[in-house]
């Protein structure tokens, strides 16, 4: 019984982390699906979202506003606005001028952008990690105290629900709205969509903005969950999310969700049963293995190289 509870605890922790990975992974997968490049700076956009949320929360606390729903909503809106603008600007400055060149050129440009943004925040806010106030505390407990109590905290529930809302909204947006339809068209054939009168530049910008907005949501949630932020915290999270995107099949939105959840569970099982130090090793090994044996991922379509 105790072992079972321990297992479920790891599962829940893993699903919590995994669902935020999925939110970040959407940004990678949508951009890759449309212009075929890895947006290396996406992790930094997420980090900036977390910082903005923290700034907004502290700002409201200084003003004396403490009503929780208001604080959360204001922080969320601020983070989404700043991150989306950042996503837009990054695409405009670093990616649009090099679009269509040799594959490595946009990638190197993206790495440069990632280093730039890390140091931008580092210089403005210092390199030390800063505590993120725990706004949502408490939770449910199962099992008796003397063996192993399994707990689900309210913040975990918040993360699940928020992720679920975001994913549903995104699916509806992609499948129903005009821009969503244009997104799908552009990802199938950019040149053809252009010929048919879709403003592809705008659609590409929109993709970056949507990805960045979801990353900002993840930034706020994970900031509250981990309890601190620092300028480097986007880098590893970005890599993990990229792994999730590849795992699910890059270019596929349901794949990113599935991949995020699987990766989160794999990580928390490693920390729970082996050692927390090796959880990064496990996720990178997972990435390498998937790329070697099933480069298209779980739900991806094989890419045919045309001459």
């Amino acid at each position: 019984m105790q072992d079972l509870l321990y297992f479920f605890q790891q599962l829940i922790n893993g699903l919590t982390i995994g669902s935020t990975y999925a939110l970040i992974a959407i940004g990678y997968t949508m951009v890759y699906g449309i212009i075929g490049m890895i947006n290396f700076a996406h992790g930094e956009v997420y980090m900036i979202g977390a910082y903005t949320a923290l700034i907004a929360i502290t700002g409201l606390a200084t003003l004396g506003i403490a009503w929780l729903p208001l604080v959360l909503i204001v922080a969320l809106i601020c983070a989404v606005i700043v991150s989306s603008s950042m996503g837009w600007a990054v695409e405009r400055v670093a990616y649009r001028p090099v679009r269509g060149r040799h594959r490595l050129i946009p990638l190197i440009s993206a790495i440069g952008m990632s280093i730039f943004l890390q140091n931008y925040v580092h210089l403005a806010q210092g390199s030390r990690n800063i505590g993120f106030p725990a706004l949502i505390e408490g939770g449910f407990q199962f099992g008796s105290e003397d063996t192993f109590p399994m707990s689900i905290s309210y913040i975990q529930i918040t993360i699940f629900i928020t992720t679920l809302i975001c994913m549903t909204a995104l699916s509806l947006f992609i499948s129903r709205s005009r821009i969503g339809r244009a997104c799908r068209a552009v990802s199938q054939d950019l040149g053809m969509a252009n010929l048919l009168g879709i403003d592809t530049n705008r659609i590409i910008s929109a993709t970056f903005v949507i990805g960045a907005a979801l990353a900002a949501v993840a930034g706020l949630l994970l900031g509250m969950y981990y309890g601190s932020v620092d300028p480097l915290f986007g880098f590893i999270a970005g890599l993990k999310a990229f792994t999730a995107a590849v795992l699910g099949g890059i270019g596929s939105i349901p794949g990113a969700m599935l991949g995020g959840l699987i990766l989160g569970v794999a990580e928390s099982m490693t920390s729970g049963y082996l050692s927390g130090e090796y959880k990064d090793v496990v996720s990178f090994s997972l990435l390498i293995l998937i790329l070697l044996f099933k480069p298209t991922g779980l739900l991806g379509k094989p890419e045919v190289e045309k001459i």
Partner: protein
Amino acid sequence: MAANNFRHALFCAIITLIISYPIIGFNLEAQGISVTLTGADTSTVVLVLLAAVVVFLFQLFRDQIMGGLKSIPSPMPKTQKEPMAENKRAKIESWVLTGIVVLALFWPFFVSRGAVDLATLVLIYVMLALGLNVVVGLAGLLDLGYVAFYAVGAYTFALLSQYAGISFWMALPIGACLAALFGLVLGFPVLRLRGDYLAIVTLGFGEIIRILLNNWTAVTGGPNGIGGIPDPTLFGMEFGRRVREEGNTSFHETFGIAYSGEHKVIFLYLIALVLAVITALIIRRFMRMPVGRAWEALREDEIAARSLGLSRTAVKLSAFTIGAFFAGFAGTVFASKQGFISPESFVFLESAIILAIVVLGGMGSQLGVVLAAVAVTILPELAREFSDYRMLVFGAAMVLMMVWRPQGLMPMRRIHIELRRQE
């Protein structure tokens, strides 16, 4: 048109404000467990506003500015006369290079110890960049985990000297070969992957190596690193004040001169110089050999190269292994220079710096890469008060290079032979 321009300019200016003001304009300060928020001083806010105004004006008059830039004659007008003949150019270049090497040989005897120490570091970066240049510049494989091979070289020497008492000269080939072996073993499965996947996998590999070094405390000492790595010896002569090992003599006693700490620094510098020159020469040879041509062919067009009968795996693997070999070389020298290594020295940022050197110098171009290595290592030392901005400038420079001059400062010139025109 003008109204459209105005709207776009206004939009860009607002975006600039949104992405800069919240991050720069407020400072988070952790005091104990509570966090306070303070507004930045007025000058910072003015700077942010100024940036927005500049963006606004630039976007508003974009067409005029861009038109104006084009009409300015370039500082080096294209001459009408024929370009210098290839063999003549090559001759001049080789004379210049020989001159630089000779100068570099005698230079350390006249400058301070710190300068020589820095120069050794520059040479280590030159070696690394030349090695990565084979992988990225020539073969077109983006390797973001290059620092892992550097770590293998450094840790091989450190561990061998600690557990087996092996000297620098023994460890140098062992470290390099072991790094090459790592390159071979890693390269074999991953080289089937497409360019950007390869980049991520190598990045993951680099992180795995670093995490293992950090956590395998029993062998590698974990985050505490390994110290007491011996200095290289010159034919059994040691450079310390006292001889560490039985049977060795010390350098200053053999030649009957006073002991000086500088001897060791200069000796290390000379070793690094010789190794860097050897690296450059070997890679130069490779570039002219069929395998070098095959690297470039595969980089330019993989499908065409394969259809002409080149083995994709063999060609890529050779580039990967050779690159790793020289990283191992550099790692051994680095361990010996520092006398102490820890996983801190082998983070992803290091890979990014080496990559930035290759990109800035011009992918594939040896001279360009060497000059970029010198510039990237020395400039931050010269402008110490701006050292915080070093990485910021790096990132921006990488982006700008890709946008404006992806071929680098000194683009590679393909080595070729011109047939004499029949008279």
